[in-house]
């Protein structure tokens, strides 16, 4: 393991030296810090993916929202009602939408297993196609392709509130017992969550949109906050690659925290006149 770390440090330094000497010729000037951050993060993530593949045990704390998914679908099955999955209102170019579709795959597996109806209204055509593929594969994986139909995933509208009105209408008419909101949301988050609350559905939300998290926390039973939402695929699949990546993310966060504290202290020393070097200049453009 120590050898590996040395190799990665060597690669990191070599790439930085390469960039430094190639600046202005092959590489863009003034982006050394950004480049070094990208390389450092990539190497850190890859290192832990590698470690996880080799069998290292990595602990992930329990996330209540993810554990509640199966419970929510089970509840819908017992009540004989459907499950509603809303993958956000953004297109597939947003990472949150991709994460939402990953969770959709997991939910679809459970609904296929329990033979519960699944309804996935979407706001983008490309997301509709991707969601259909995801659901089809999930149903096939569980051995129930007969239960899948394209009508499970349907396009409502690109417009934010036309989509919201459509989803609200589905909720009021069909009264799903479980509602999942997983993706990128804007102002419609509270409208959806409150409507779901009014029909008595169990609601599990997850989003990377920081401004909408408080609304989901207030109105939903379980909420995946920030990073928890992005770790869902790792958590649910238990694949070493993905779990290793999560650990790598946490280590990168640790690096960021250490950098912030060190920068704060050194910048304080600079302002007090104890040192001549201002560390903030390193982060400039």
């Amino acid at each position, binding site marked *: 393991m120590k050898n590996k770390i040395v190799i990665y440090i060597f690669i990191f330094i070599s790439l930085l030296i390469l960039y430094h000497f190639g600046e202005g010729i092959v590489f863009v000037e003034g982006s050394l810090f950004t480049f070094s951050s990208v390389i450092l993060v990539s190497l850190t993530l890859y290192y832990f993916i590698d470690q996880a593949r080799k069998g290292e045990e990595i602990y992930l704390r329990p996330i209540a929202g993810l554990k509640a998914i199966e419970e929510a679908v089970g509840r819908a099955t017992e009540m004989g009602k459907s499950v509603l999955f809303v993958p956000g209102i*953004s297109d597939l170019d947003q990472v949150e939408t991709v994460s939402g579709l990953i969770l959709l795959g997991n939910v679809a597996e459970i609904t296929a297993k329990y033979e519960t109806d699944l309804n996935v209204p979407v706001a983008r055509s490309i997301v509709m196609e991707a969601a259909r593929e995801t659901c089809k594969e999930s149903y096939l994986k569980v051995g129930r392709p007969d239960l899948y139909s394209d009508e499970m995933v349907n396009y409502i509208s690109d417009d*934010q*509130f036309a989509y919201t009105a459509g989803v609200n209408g589905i909720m009021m008419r069909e009264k799903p017992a479980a509602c999942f909101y997983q993706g990128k949301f*804007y*102002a419609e988050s509270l409208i959806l969550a409150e409507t779901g609350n*009014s029909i008595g559905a169990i609601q599990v939300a997850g989003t990377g949109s*920081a*401004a909408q998290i408080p609304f989901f926390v207030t109105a939903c039973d379980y909420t995946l906050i920030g990073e928890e939402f992005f770790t869902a695929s790792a958590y649910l699949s238990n694949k070493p690659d993905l779990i290793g990546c999560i650990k790598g993310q946490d280590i990168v966060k640790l690096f960021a925290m250490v950098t912030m504290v060190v920068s704060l202290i050194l910048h304080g020393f600079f302002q007090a006149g104890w040192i001549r070097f201002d560390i903030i200049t390193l982060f400039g*453009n």
Partner: protein
Amino acid sequence: MNRIKNILVSLGSLDRRVIFIIVGLSVLIPLLKPDWVSLPIKNKAHSQRVFDELNLLEPNSKVLLSFDYGPSTMPEIHPMAIALLRHMFAKNIKVYGIALWDTGNFMSTDAFSQVSKEFEIAYDKDYVNLGYKPGGEAVIQGLTSDFRTKYKSDLSGNNIDHLLLMKNVNNLEDFDFVISLSAGDPGSKQWVQFGTDPSNIPFTTGCTSIQVTDIIPYVENNQILGILEGMPGAAEYESLVETELHTMGVSLTPGKASSMMSAQSIAHIVIVLFIIFGNISYFSRRREDRNNS
């Protein structure tokens, strides 16, 4: 005593329709009868900063105004657009309108149309409206390198090379100031990250109240110079502009945001009262359960 207790407990389980009706009335009545509730608007530091920054601009300065909002947030953000345009046209600042949202086209057309009738301004002399381009941050990145990779014509289809105001405007750095009126993504964040911060161009924004928590770190870092925070921010800016125009001897119809603040104030008080009643009921019920057990 028991009767009071029962009333207190029942306050915690009001039907949501009752809440909706009371909130509805608390907004509707001040809007229909603005004279009944008239509250003075006190300017906050963030709105004042936006005003001061724009006031520092010289006549004939170039300002890029991005309309990044749609009809749903129009009541909150459009008054900001009107107030900003009034301020800039009164100071003889040249305004360049663009939009990162498709609905921004309609917003910009309406805003320019409304304000152009109030001032004696002409298209391609005082302002141009270049319209919407899809791509979000890619548009901003394109503008930082070469304006003409993204915009070849204005909203009406006129070639931008034939526009007088577009002479000597080649990229984002040719502007003295950039303003984004933003209701989501793409919006203020993307402007800071891809446009104004890398190019070191002064930038300010007006956004919906809910977005303020996301944007405030950039304001604290001086990457965004002040912020108009939702409808209260719009009302504050309107009052600042009206005072300024008054000193210049210009009198215009009052802005819409100011008249809506009374309604917002009453609605907020009603919500606070509901929260208080809910908690009183919660404690009464808890005490009752404790006494019973």
